[in-house]
């Protein structure tokens, strides 16, 4: 009636159409070692699959041959690798090659040292130039600052002189009365009128 289903779908079928009253969740390997064997598997004896003797003999021969060939190949290859390594380390041409390599190495190191010296010289020149330029700039900055300071001093002196000149006209306690009389006698008028042509009229009526 039911189609043959195996594995997961069997458990799913058991889940969906439970025979027992309780719904059992299907999980793989849910029995431990100490659990008793299931009732359906009580008298089961495990029997290995039957062997065909003729087939077995043929197979065994073929397998031995195959494995022989494979082992031989493997050993040959291994031997080849070991020989190459041996030749490289202590072969006939190993010493020549070693000397050649040493010579090349020395030549390259020489070349490297030469390059280093050359670049060192260039660098020394460049560093020297930069130092000189920095010195120059510092001197220039100092000069500039001194000049500015002198300029400042000159301007301040000028201002002081001007003030000294003007100080002769300041009001002192002795001048006071005289200046008051002067001021009262000469009223000053800062008002003026101007028109679009730029004519300035300073005389205004003081109320």
């Amino acid at each position, binding site marked *: 009636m039911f189609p043959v289903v195996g594995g997961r779908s069997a458990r799913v079928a058991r889940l969906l159409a439970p025979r027992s009253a309780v719904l059992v969740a299907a999980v793989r390997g849910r029995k431990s070692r100490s659990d008793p064997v299931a009732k359906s598997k009580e008298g089961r004896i495990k029997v290995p699959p039957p062997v065909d003797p003729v087939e077995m003999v043929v197979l065994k021969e073929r397998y031995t041959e195959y494995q022989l060939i494979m082992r031989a190949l493997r050993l040959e290859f291994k031997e080849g690798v070991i020989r190459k390594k041996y030749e490289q380390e202590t072969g006939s041409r190993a010493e020549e090659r070693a000397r050649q390599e040493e010579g090349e190495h020395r030549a390259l190191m020489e070349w490297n040292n030469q390059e280093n010296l050359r670049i060192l010289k260039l660098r020394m020149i460049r560093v020297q130039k930069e130092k000189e330029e920095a010195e120059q700039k510092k001197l220039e900055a100092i000069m500039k600052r001194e000049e500015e300071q002198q300029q400042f001093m000159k301007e301040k002196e000028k201002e002081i002189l001007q003030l000294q000149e003007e100080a002769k006209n*300041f009001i002192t306690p002795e001048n006071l*009365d005289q200046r008051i*009389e002067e*001021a*009262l006698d000469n*009223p000053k008028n800062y008002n003026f009128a*101007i028109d679009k042509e730029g004519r*300035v009229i300073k005389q205004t009526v003081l*109320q």
Partner: protein
Amino acid sequence: MPRYELALILKAMQRPETAAALRRTVETLMERGAVVRELENLGERLLPYKITKHCERHKRGTYFLVDFYAAPDVLPGLLNHLHRDVDVVRPTVLKKDAQTPSQCCGPQL
């Protein structure tokens, strides 16, 4: 020292009284360590509005301009003194900055 300008409006009085008030003011300034540079008279004129000061209503006043150099900390005291002076209608102290050269192409006055 910074340079200040005192725009002083005195009561419209007779000449001797005005002279006395001016003398008083300048002496106060000098007492507080100021160096008075110039004293200008802008004339007796109508005030722009009626000012009430010291229980008196003023319509006319004499305008004076005092340039002086002073320390900044004497100013509050000075203004206080001037406010209390009966003859002074309105004292105003302003700072005078150095004149910057202007690029005005108008007529030079």
